[in-house]
């Protein structure tokens, strides 16, 4: 499966049960990126979309339910238990330091993935957002 996560400078994802940040430009990018594929997410993640994209699938255990070609937009669910099923990680960097108490538990650099693409763009409420696409090494 392919996982999408957004992190701050310290790899943080949540603070006090709440996402660290959000940006409508990121949501639009995710919609474009996942077009034609299922996009799994929890109800909490779905709550940041004003209109859910057509490809959205809601589950409280999206990493369990997603198929091999599907995307999962993850906010705080541990990735490590699903490490072997993850073929790609789309890591969105806020390029900001936020408070955090839940951190990304699987750094793509440390699980045999290779950076395939990186792109900077301006968000609506963030000066510079970076989107990295990491893929598992072939063979």
């Amino acid at each position, binding site marked *: 499966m392919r996982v999408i996560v957004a992190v701050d400078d310290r790899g943080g*994802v949540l603070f006090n049960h709440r996402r660290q940040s959000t940006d409508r430009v990121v949501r639009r990018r995710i919609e474009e990126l996942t077009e034609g594929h299922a996009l799994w997410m929890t109800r909490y993640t779905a709550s940041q979309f004003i209109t859910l994209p057509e490809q959205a699938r809601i589950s409280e255990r999206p990493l369990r339910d997603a198929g091999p070609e599907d995307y999962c937009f993850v906010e705080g669910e541990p990735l490590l238990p699903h490490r072997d099923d993850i073929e790609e990680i789309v890591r969105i960097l806020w390029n900001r330091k936020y408070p955090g108490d839940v951190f990304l538990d699987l750094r793509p650099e440390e699980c045999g993935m290779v950076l395939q693409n990186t792109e900077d763009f301006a968000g609506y409420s963030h000066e510079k957002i970076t989107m990295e696409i990491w893929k598992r090494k072939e063979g």
Partner: protein
Amino acid sequence: MRKRRKSGRRPLTGTLVFMAFIIVLCFLVNPPGVKKAATTESASIAASVAAGTNDDAQADTDGAAAQAPAATTGTSFQLADIPPYAGAPYVAVNNNVPYFSDSNLTEVSFEQYGDLDPLGRCTAAYACIGQDLMPTEKRGDISSVRPTGWHNVKYNGIDGKYLYNRCHLIGYQLTAENANEKNLITGTRYMNVEGMEPFENMTADYIKESGNHVLYRVTPIFEGNNLVASGVLMEGRSVEDGGAGVLFCVYCYNVQSGITIDYATGDSSESADAGNSAQVRTNQAAPTATQAAATANQTEAAYIGNSHTHTFHRPDCSSVARMSDKNKVTFSSREEAVSAGYDPCEICNP
């Protein structure tokens, strides 16, 4: 150099409870004998403010997070309940629920900076922050302000070298205040950048994205007649969504690794055992049961060292998961780890 002027006025009830909050904090922090102004009537108001509403606690989500370790719970903030600094720049207070009451909530922007106390120290800064209060131009010069306990002192190993910053209670990016003596305290570089700024960033970006308001209060906590604050209490709650977007209540420690501070005067010196000052190097909080909570224990510890191997790691390094708790030490910066004699891990390359 002037920011756009703010719209909106503080509601009268908000003013009353704000004043009462300052009074109750002074009462709680200052020992007997220190000048206090609390009357029976105001103390009564303060009690109701401090009791606040804890309904916010369950303005919750489906997120899988664990709560940051709570320092204190109950109806009022007490410095005595704050644990000694243990490597994290802040600690959750009152289960991360601010001491605001429902009567504090308003969708009208305002800002208020408490008068200096008889020793010239800042009191609380309080605002309902909306986009209309945020800056439209770059920050101006604030060097004309000399907060209590201020010293221009440099040390090697500190980012920018200066131990102290003129710390905005309410950050410039939120209410565009420049050289306002009621909003600037003597704070360490560490508290400014690692403790307070992340909350300011989170609040600012939320307001920009949503267009909503955040009720926000920062209270410097002085012990007795000290001129330098021991730390600051930061509270924030998003208004229109009932705290679903932003909700925090934390205490940020006014400390700096490797430096001993005399809080009475602001004098400072390198710790005898540099990097090992009693203020800055203690064991981490005990681990908790769940994986998420285990992650929470590493909150803001930029690096984890192994006292057995004298190697330091990124918190998410696989070696940390295998490390015995008794061997774990935390560092807030790479420099701190290196100066303490630790070598970088060859796996995570911190």
